[in-house]
């Protein structure tokens, strides 16, 4: 294990995070606050409780999840895309590091940043609505699993993308819609039967449901189903990354 390399990459990535800390924290915090003002207070006051939870509180886990997913994706994809873009990737490829070490350090750094942001948003939410977390360990588990899983996806996107548009494409066209339609702002049970069935194919639904359960003990699905789905995504992305490195896809000619 080349621990020096893992440490070097992780610190390098965290230094990048630190340089852009203000913008990377300020914008999610502002947008989350806006969600609370609009949905939580303005509209939410006219919406009845869902599963016995006030609407403002109900949307907290979904909003955090939304930030976690988008942040993990963009941090990880940018982290590996940028060296490809500038050409400095030559050094990584010529270094005595294993694929596992590369993934651990890049994904670890991206996940760290997302978790910090998630916690900041959680604290921000606490300013607007009274928070309760019934199952803190599960909450942390879902937080970790989600950030790692989607940082892996981000890593894959960063390797696949060969221009900045593609880098934005997947988060914008797929992940954000899936998150919005994944029960961030409503319970899946509120949907008509047909759409409810469609929603079952949206992977993000399970993440949000599980995360919400860890807060309030109510969920659209059994928490074990949520956990199993999350782990399944993790496995798919791990397998994809393994394939990328085995074939040198978009990294080595």
């Amino acid at each position, binding site marked *: 294990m*080349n621990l*020096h390399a893992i440490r*070097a990459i992780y610190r390098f990535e965290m230094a990048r995070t630190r340089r852009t800390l203000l913008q990377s924290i300020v914008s999610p915090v502002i947008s989350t606050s806006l969600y609370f003002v609009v949905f939580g207070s303005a509209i939410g006051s006219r919406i009845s409780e869902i599963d016995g939870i006030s609407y403002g509180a109900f949307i907290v886990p979904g909003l955090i999840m939304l930030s976690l997913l988008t942040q993990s994706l963009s941090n990880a994809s940018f982290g590996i895309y940028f060296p490809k873009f*500038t050409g*400095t990737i030559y050094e990584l*490829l010529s270094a005595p*590091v294993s694929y596992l070490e590369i993934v651990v350090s890049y994904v670890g750094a991206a996940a760290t940043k997302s978790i910090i942001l998630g916690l900041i948003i959680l604290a921000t939410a606490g300013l607007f609505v009274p928070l309760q977390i019934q199952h803190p360990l599960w909450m942390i588990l879902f937080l970790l699993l989600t950030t790692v899983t989607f940082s892996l996806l981000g890593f894959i996107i960063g390797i696949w993308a060969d221009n900045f548009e593609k880098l934005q494409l997947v988060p914008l066209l797929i992940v954000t819609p899936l998150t919005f339609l994944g029960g961030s702002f409503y319970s899946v049970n509120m949907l008509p039967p047909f759409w409810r069935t469609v929603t079952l194919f949206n992977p993000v639904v399970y993440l949000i449901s599980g995360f919400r359960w860890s807060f309030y003990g109510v969920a659209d699905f059994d928490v074990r189903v949520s956990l199993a789905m999350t782990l399944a995504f993790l496995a798919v992305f791990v397998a994809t990354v393994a394939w990328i490195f085995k074939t040198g896809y978009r990294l*080595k*000619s």
Partner: protein
Amino acid sequence: MAAPALSFAIVAGMPDIISIKNLSKTYASGFRALKGINLDIRRGEIFALLGPNGAGKTTLISIICGIVNPSEGSVQVDGCDIIHNYREARSLIGLVPQELATDAFESVWATVSFSRGLFGKGPNPAHIEKVLRVLSLWEKKDSRVMTLSGGMKRRLLIAKALSHEPKVLFLDEPTAGVDVSLRKDMWQLVRSLRETGVTIILTTHYIEEAEEMADRVGVIRNGEIILVEDKADLMRKLGKKQLTLHLQQPLSHIPEALADYHLDLTEDGSALTYTYETQADRTGIVSLLEALNAAGVGFRDLQTTESSLEDIFIELVRTGQ
């Protein structure tokens, strides 16, 4: 008496630092950039890989360093296979790439320290300081990389490559686009590195660079190594010499009697030039001088010039040996 014999035994017993066997590369486009390369690099030498643009120099280096996958063949670095023992092999190598690819926002110190860590070495500020001083980057250690000039960035890439104390240093066109004084500094640096036991492989299409620095020269053309020679041998073997005779009386034409020597007469008729191959058993100089004497052509001075590696190289690449 024992000492030289012993050191000879050690040198003779030491395998080559890099051994390339039957290496080929076909890119995804179907283009065959390397065609069965066999090449051994000796421990501690400066090896210049000389070849025109597109010959496959960067491809060869990139395979050895792990940036490009080989299609066929194998490479060993100090006995370690670059695929199966990639960790050991790569930790021995420092690479200065052809393209000036650098970070932008990091400080010089941070980016060089990063490289050391990436190559699996623990922090050693004293070594980093030494490298930065040698490369005249010490004053810039806290500057952001993007504020450096092109020449400084080139030196920064060298500093990064040296940060983990490699045994083998690859310099891919190190002086391309570098001004003359900096080039001289670079050569000086390379020589002093060799003195510390580092093996240096540099690619170049500037012949004067190979001529100035290399112990051995390899010429690559269209993905094939067409020649590997000690530089001195190469110049001796392939070198042509010219004998110029400054005449006492200008000639209007070359006398019939001297036709066999294929002489050239300068425009003003004041000098004759005779070209001969140095490796030939008989250069023909003696008989030429006798023939001149017999024809009554007197000369007041003579001089010989040797063709440079550049002439040899152009000849080689043009004719394909």
